[in-house]
């Protein structure tokens, strides 16, 4: 970034980046001065520029800032009974894996921060997880979704989001129970899309639902209407898009344009964002997607939602999927530090061996995987993204046929 060259030498890059980030997100840590004791230094990198920014700045970093502010306002983080202020040491990773790895190496290796928080996205977590494991830092990742991460069997690594299998099982289960017989699929051709697509195919086996057409697409695609048109001609009961935020909006807009109106319309990451409702407006009604909580899920979830909106404004609501997971991961970390102090091994053992109460409900880990939160499906209903499947955690009943786009 060009500003590095023009700043006085005495000013650290970290400080500059923090100051930059603070402009949109209000002041990061107003509570520091009030808390007592030596600060607990917590390091992370986050995408503030580049293609990951959208996800990182909706689902992840706002929660870190809110958490630190809340803890410090309450006198500091409870470290085995002693209240100590939180100092966040963060920088922009520019959506670049190399930068992520180098920065975490520095944070853990030479800065020796007390704790680290994960970066955004499956790819970055994939790169950092083995490193964190080597340095023995517990690592509870809120925005990583990959079977391969689980299979690496890293003892210090924990995944909050439901994995492809449970998400796709829930989706197929719901479609089957509501009489869908045919499906068209588009999926992004990276780790996320490929793993979910593979899980979807496994889930579909023996379900009586057939795939009438499936197409992959590259990240950053600008136009999917040629594909959607041919899907429209085949008239499937369900459309499933294993998509990222820009593409989630792209397939929705273009389906509306060409009048592609399947009974079930499902898109993945980004459907649970407030942006989706802003862009699609009334057209969002009935659209399905990856979502696992909202303000009705628990009293804690409601309090979190309200605090988030209070800090960042009504124009920046938490998303109804990964934001909840990020907050839950911070709840788990808070509880672990209260119990085990800053002994990293003890924190790890606490996280691995305890059933945690979070805003998402009970969370517990088998290996790296969160097996406490079931796979789920969300749906836009009258301006709120409701959890509609499975029925045990639903916040509203499913509307089984999506109204035509408006």
């Amino acid at each position: 970034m060009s500003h590095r060259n023009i700043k006085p030498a005495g000013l650290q890059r970290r400080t500059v980046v923090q100051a930059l980030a603070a402009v949109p997100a209000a002041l990061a840590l107003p509570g520091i001065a009030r808390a007592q004791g030596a600060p607990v230094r917590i390091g992370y990198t986050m995408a503030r520029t580049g293609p990951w920014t959208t996800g990182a700045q909706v689902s992840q970093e706002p929660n870190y800032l809110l958490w630190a502010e809340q803890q410090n306002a309450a006198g500091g983080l409870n470290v085995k009974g002693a209240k100590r202020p939180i100092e966040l040491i963060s920088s922009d990773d520019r959506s670049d894996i190399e930068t992520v790895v180098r920065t975490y190496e520095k944070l853990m290796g030479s800065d020796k921060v007390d704790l680290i928080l994960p970066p955004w996205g499956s790819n970055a977590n994939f790169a950092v997880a083995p490193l964190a494991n080597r340095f023995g830092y517990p690592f509870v990742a809120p925005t990583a979704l990959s079977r391969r991460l689980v299979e690496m069997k890293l003892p210090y690594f924990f995944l909050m989001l439901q994995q492809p299998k449970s998400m796709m099982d829930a989706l197929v289960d719901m479609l089957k129970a509501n009489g869908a017989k045919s499906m068209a699929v588009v999926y992004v051709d990276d780790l996320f899309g490929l793993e979910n697509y593979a899980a979807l195919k496994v889930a579909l086996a023996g379900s009586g639902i057939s795939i009438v057409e499936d197409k992959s697409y590259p990240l950053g695609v600008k136009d999917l209407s040629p594909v959607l048109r041919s899907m429209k001609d085949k008239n499937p009961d369900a459309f499933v898009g294993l998509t990222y935020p820009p593409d989630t909006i792209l397939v929705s807009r273009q389906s509306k344009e060409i009048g592609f109106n399947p009974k079930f319309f499902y898109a993945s990451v980004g459907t649970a964002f407030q942006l989706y409702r802003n862009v699609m407006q009334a057209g969002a009604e009935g659209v399905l997607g990856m979502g696992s909580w909202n303000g009705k899920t628990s009293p804690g979830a409601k309090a979190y939602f309200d605090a988030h909106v209070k800090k960042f404004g009504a124009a920046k609501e938490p998303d109804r999927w990964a934001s909840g997971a990020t907050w839950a991961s911070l709840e788990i970390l808070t509880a672990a530090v209260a119990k085990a102090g800053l002994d990293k091994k003890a924190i790890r053992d606490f996280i691995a061996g305890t059933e945690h109460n979070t805003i998402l409900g009970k969370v517990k880990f088998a290996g790296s995987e969160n097996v406490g939160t079931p796979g789920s499906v969300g749906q836009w209903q009258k301006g709120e993204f409701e959890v509609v499947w499975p029925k045990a955690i639903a916040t509203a009943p499913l509307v089984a046929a999506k109204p035509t786009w408006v």
Partner: protein
Amino acid sequence: MSFGSWLELIASGLITGGVYALVALGLNLQYGLMRILNIAHGEFLMVGAFITWTAQSALGLSPLLMVPVSFALLMVLGLAIHRLVFRRLTRTSPTLDIFEARGLMVSFGLMFLVQNFAQLIWGGDLRGYDYLADPVKVGDAQFAANKLLLLALALAISAGLIVFLRNTLYGKGVRALMQSPTGAQLVGIDTERLHPLMFGIGLGLSGVAGCLLSMTYTISPSMGQPYTVTALIVITLGGFGSMGGALAGGLALGVIEAVGMHFTNPSLKSLLSYGIFIAVLLWRPNGLFARR
């Protein structure tokens, strides 16, 4: 495939191609006339898109009104950038080749600067708004109104620019400069005036493309770069410095991509565009439409 589906497919290609053409025309003005290979060109498209989004969401202005406004704002920005950077470079570079190499480096720097400024002002979030998104029926086919508007405006503005360059004295000066810079200066064409103006118009076109794109797609600070790359492919197709070629090349690339995606797979889109790019460079290095 029915006639309606074909119509939809070709039209969706033309719509994408219209934007390609607009961006490519601007880049072509800069490269064809001044040998500035402006890698930051797409970033100004992003700025145009964000200005439109801000005007629409904060002030409630119609995006349509923002078409001339973003053109004007970006043009002024272009004039300023030319004055601050490229004028000085022209004066200090001993030869045109050295100027071209330095200009390339400078525009790389500009790309990062503009992207980070946008990040600072608007943040990294994905943005979008709803404008004329209702479908319109044309025979058997169906399109979003904003897409049709986008195509119509892109074609009109491109055609307007081509007519301007063909029929006005300014245009004649520009074309003369493209054919022979030294000869043009010998007969009294004022490069000191024409260069900044054309650089400004180039950026203005990029701003208009961004304004039009924001009506139909979501926008983010990283949206510009792919368009720079596509514009490079398009001006290679159409021939460096050829305005008609850039328009035809843009529309053709849009249609080729749409048909290619329909019959194969969107994942193969880049393969298709770059394949064409390499083939043209190998076999028709002066562009598909060059008269030899």
